[in-house]
């Protein structure tokens, strides 16, 4: 008989081992699924995990990994701070959208001013501020009226999507676009473009910002009093109160930081890879970042790795679609398996598997 026995303290080994085990299990289960679809499972797994890094066209894919991972990491790092403190910002997607709109609006308002030293920093500030303010809505509502930040932040995503459609069709629409929706392409506006810093590397300012965020979050959590408060509030809210943690300040801080980082991610995306505000500009980075945050154990370095891994499944998954004719749904199921196995194996962090009968005291 197999039974689970609660560990006295969560296992540190398993906390780091489960993501690896989950990836391996996903490869096996995904391979079985691909085989059932009539595709060579080994080739499929190789296309997804190997080709983008070391395959024939890796010179292009490696850069794309950074492009895809950048916003995921940037958002996830912000979310992880709140998640550690038990503050659940589920609406990063909305903050991402609003950040992109605010940043793009500033850039478009200054068009065709050529002073990049002025335009681009202003856009960055507007992007961060937009995301921050959007996240303050659930923050203030929670601290003032004790509303549930999960619901409020999530529902504000749909509000943000409507604003996005309005902006793409109305105020931010390209006046030279013969009536079609969508703003001017910021990438074709030198002063506002977030282009690659080194051509072909995928490295744009958003990726740089993500790396800086990882470092700052690491220092904050390990060296700073605020980081201590965050960890304490998550582990023991009562103890936190005795230690002098101001819960309202903590809520606003965590939501504000995660909102600002999500807004930045949106700004860097709209000025770079996406290029323009369009009706369906957002593609779910804000939600995927939640998975990345947990896959990375809410640890900055873990998130860095998890973001790259997630990006790999996207890039590799797309490659597998195009080269092997795998359906898009199979790739999504494959990514779903990853989260499923991660959560499943997570049990091992807090529980021990025992064979045999329970020993009675």
């Amino acid at each position, binding site marked *: 008989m197999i039974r689970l026995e609660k560990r006295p303290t969560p296992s540190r080994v398993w906390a780091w081992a489960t993501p690896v085990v989950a990836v391996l299990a996903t490869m096996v289960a995904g391979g079985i699924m691909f085989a059932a679809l009539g595709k060579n499972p080994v080739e499929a797994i190789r296309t997804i995990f190997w080709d983008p890094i070391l395959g024939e066209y890796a010179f292009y894919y490696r850069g794309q990994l950074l492009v895809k991972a950048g916003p995921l990491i940037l958002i996830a790092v912000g979310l992880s701070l709140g998640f550690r403190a038990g503050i659940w910002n589920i609406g990063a997607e909305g903050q991402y959208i609003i950040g992109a709109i605010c940043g793009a609006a500033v850039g478009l308002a200054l068009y065709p001013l050529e002073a990049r030293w002025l335009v681009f920093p202003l856009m960055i500030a507007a992007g961060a501020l937009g995301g921050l303010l959007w996240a303050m809505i659930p923050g203030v509502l929670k601290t003032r009226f004790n509303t549930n930040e999960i619901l409020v932040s999530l529902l504000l995503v749909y509000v943000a999507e409507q604003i996005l459609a309005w902006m793409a069709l*109305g105020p931010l629409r390209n006046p030279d676009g013969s009536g*079609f929706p969508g703003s001017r392409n910021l990438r074709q506006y030198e002063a506002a473009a977030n282009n690659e810093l080194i051509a072909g590397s995928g490295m744009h300012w958003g990726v740089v910002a993500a790396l800086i965020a990882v470092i700052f979050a690491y220092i904050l959590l390990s060296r700073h009093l605020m980081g201590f408060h965050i960890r304490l509030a998550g582990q023991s809210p009562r103890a936190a109160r005795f230690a002098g943690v101001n819960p309202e300040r903590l809520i606003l801080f965590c939501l504000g930081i995660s909102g600002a980082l999500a807004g930045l991610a949106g700004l860097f995306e709209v000025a770079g890879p*996406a290029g323009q505000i369009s009706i369906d500009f957002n593609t779910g980075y804000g939600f995927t970042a939640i998975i990345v945050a947990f896959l990375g154990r809410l640890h900055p370095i873990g998130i860095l790795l998890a973001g790259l891994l997630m990006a790999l499944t996207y890039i590799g998954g797309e490659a597998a679609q195009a080269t092997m004719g795998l359906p898009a749904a199979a790739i999504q199921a494959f990514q779903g398996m990853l989260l499923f196995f991660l959560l499943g194996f997570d049990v091992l962090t807090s529980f021990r598997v025992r064979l045999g009968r329970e020993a009675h005291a």
Partner: protein
Amino acid sequence: MKKRTFLASAAAAAALIAANPALAQDPVKVGFIYVGPIGDGGWTYEHDQARLAVEEHFGDQVETIYQESVPEGADAERALTQMALQGADLIFTTSFGYMDPTINVAAKFPDVKFEHATGYKTADNVGVYSARFYEGRAVQGHIAGKLTQSNKVGYIASFPIPEVIRGINSAYIHAKKANPDVEFAIVWAYTWFDPAKEADAAKALIEQGADVILQHTDSTAPQAAAAEAGNVYTFGQASDMAEYAPMPRVSSIIDNWAPYYIDRVQAVIDGTWTSDNTWDGIGPGMVKIGEISDAVPAEVKAEAEALRDSIAAGEYHPFTGPLKKQDGSDWLAEGETADDGTLAGMNFYVEGITGEIPN
């Protein structure tokens, strides 16, 4: 510029990889980027049918690849680059939102040909194509005007772009001609494919009293919603959707891309491909009217078919004056027909339609 060097090297790499088909006798590789899943039963389904027709027509001479459900935007650019790197010689990008990504990627791969559906930006290696769906909408509008008992026709619109507005106007003009009391209720779904949203829109329209539902979205969900409600008429969109015939689906507008795709692939094989701007309708066969079912009275069916045939023969243009714009200003004088430029950028309703185009 550094960017240029990357472009050049990427292009050189692509040229090497995509070994000249004429020399190596390699099959021509044709890529397709789809906005929905190939099983959507509508827009993407028809593009994929055309892809299969290309395979069947050319056999070993071609190899086709596709990627479905590609979001419009940054991801599309990667999907396109990926296909170009893998040696595609010709890539069809089959949704409006792929316009800028197509232009961007095309600039990096001057030797790869691109065909973008429903857009307006061209380049030396980017052609655009679309179908005159509004011709089909005219036939649809006529039948809708005749069929409605409540005089209320529901319209599930996707995005407020000229193509969709053109369809609304054309359907309205001909419904109004068939039935002067007709009214249009328009719902904007802001999606091309979202069965849940489309079903909700259809139900809302039916609850408001609409007994004919027209759709410019790609799934069969509105058909299912109408079937459930009973006594509501619908039309297949992009694809025949014949599984809902004879009721609620009484006819359809079918996109028939196969002849065009075969033609363009042949041009690449022959080395005669040049950037084009194709806009074909019922006449050349790019737009087809699906079988009008027995739920439609015989005389209405005959009228609709006559309308279809006169459009196909070029005797009648669906936008023929006198026509006014919604605000009451004159648009087309008696007997005047709309020019393609105005139609391509259409951003106004004709007189009689209530509501505003979202902006």
